[in-house]
């Protein structure tokens, strides 16, 4: 198995392990991701992919292992601090703030960099108003980049499904991440929308300079975007390497298609 970690990677995970009671959901998960790279995390249902995201973002506390970003250990920090440090994510089931406009959804993600204190906000001080308008301008910029500027005032949950996914992406970008975790961005999209999504994710990587880790079942999206891929099955890593080598791995073929099949992934 080819495994060539980059020197001084931006984002590194070593030995990440987590069990729910007796069930080991993730065991000894390793990853090294350089700035501006896109990697795919794939595997059958229940393989532990989303659990990996939940461990990285502090939703669950890992039983073992470390997550480091730019040399800083993020393991066991509270979720909101992890986001502030530069790891943000989207959700498999869209989780937008249902009473808020598209713009307010994005603005909420600037919580850690409001740049004013509560008393200033209470009094409506000049510094508060200046910061609010600059945060608002940066949110409108992000929305513009994703082609959502004309929907800024719409109630986020009233938008069509595909657009809601974009709003989640915009919200995740608002916290200025160095690493972006996308949980099944292509779920529920038709082939045409999927093509647009590939262009958009690549565009986001270029425009915002983020490294992207994505969970996906749609192999077209993975093959088009990801240089390297990690495959999980029952919580263990069964493949780590170049996406192009994926179909050559007997373990992967077996995990997806069972034994005694002459088939390839793709």
């Amino acid at each position, binding site marked *: 198995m080819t495994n060539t970690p980059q020197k001084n990677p931006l984002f590194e995970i070593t030995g990440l392990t987590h069990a729910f009671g007796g069930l080991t959901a993730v065991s000894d998960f390793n990853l090294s991701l350089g700035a501006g790279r896109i990697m795919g995390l794939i595997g059958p249902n229940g393989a532990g992919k989303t659990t990996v995201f939940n461990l990285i*973002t*502090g*939703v669950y506390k890992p039983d073992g292992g470390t997550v480091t970003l730019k040399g800083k250990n993020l393991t066991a920090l*509270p*979720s*909101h601090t992890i*986001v*502030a440090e530069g790891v*943000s*994510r989207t*959700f498999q089931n869209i*989780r*937008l*703030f*249902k*009473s*808020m*406009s598209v*713009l*307010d959804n994005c*603005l*909420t*993600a*600037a*919580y*850690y960099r*409001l740049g*004013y204190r*509560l008393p200033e*906000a*209470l*009094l*409506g001080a000049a510094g*508060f108003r200046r910061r*609010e308008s600059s*945060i608002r301008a940066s949110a409108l910029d992000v929305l513009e980049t994703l082609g959502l500027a004309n929907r*800024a*005032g*719409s*109630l986020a949950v*009233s938008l069509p499904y595909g657009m809601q996914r974009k709003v989640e992406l915009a*919200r*995740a970008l*608002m*916290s200025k991440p160095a690493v972006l975790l996308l949980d099944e961005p292509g779920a529920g999209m038709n082939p045409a929308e999927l093509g647009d999504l590939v262009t958009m994710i690549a565009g986001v990587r270029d425009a915002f300079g983020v490294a992207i880790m994505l969970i996906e079942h749609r192999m077209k999206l993975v093959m088009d975007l990801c240089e390297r891929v990690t495959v999980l099955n029952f919580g263990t890593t069964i493949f780590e390497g170049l996406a192009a080598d994926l179909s050559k791995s007997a373990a992967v073929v077996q995990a997806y298609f069972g034994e005694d099949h002459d088939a390839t992934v793709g």
Partner: protein
Amino acid sequence: MPSKFIGPGLFLCGLAVTLSCDALHLINPYIAQILMYIGINVIMTSSLNLVNGYLGEFSVGHAAFMAVGAYAAAFFSLSIFPHCGPLLFPLSLLAGGFASGIIGFLVAIPAFKARDDYLAIITLALIMITKSMFENLPWFGGPQGYSGIPKYTNLSWVFAAAVMTVVVVRNVVRSGFGRGIIAVRDDEVAATLVSVDTRQVKIIAFVIAAFFAGVGGGLFAHLIQFINPRTFSILKSTDFLLMLYLGGSATIGGPILGAAIWTILLEVLRFLGVWRFVVAPVALIVLMVYRPQGIMGWNRKKRENLKV
């Protein structure tokens, strides 16, 4: 006139009117009393709105915060500066606010973990604790109540405090902290994962709500001049809940409207005697059936485009 002077201008006009009413006794004392009740109820309901409307919790403990504020402010007026007259009244009110704010902070801590029904039970316990505390502490007259409180509350103080409460609540809600509060209501997990410090926003909501409830309690104590622990029972909390949901929670205007309508309704229906406590709640039930979001509450489905 630039728009930013309109608000303060209106406030000063209102203050001038209430000051002259107080000084020259322009208004019939009965009407003045009702107006002051409305003002105090606006303070109570607007502050409750921060927790029950924007944060989306269900606190039934607002009467307890009011009690702490009422007793603390009365204690300051009677024992700390007894011969200073109404001059130091604002300090008594602030003392009531701060005392209550501290209790608000203590309630925010269980709210880190508990939500919904559980938080309602915790705040219910708070009411019982404060009631028995004031019944048993020796300095406040015990169950007989705390009497001899000077009548410092007048229209001007109530007006100023009510405006301040509404403005502060509005400013919080429109700030990044307010977006954090609303995000916790909409989806707490998603809120933490977009960098909202959920503990911080809960503390902010509870402490500010409790502070203004304490100020409202101080005004109340110096208006009716006699308080006892039974005044601040769960029924008192229910009044504020009622006004909040009547007017429309999570709106700025709703609590004001709800407080005004409910207070006036109970007075107008006074001729019905004890039956007003039947008629008014029935009116409320009818309203909730046909307009569950409250009078000012907006219907999400009908509101496609929000203000940018």
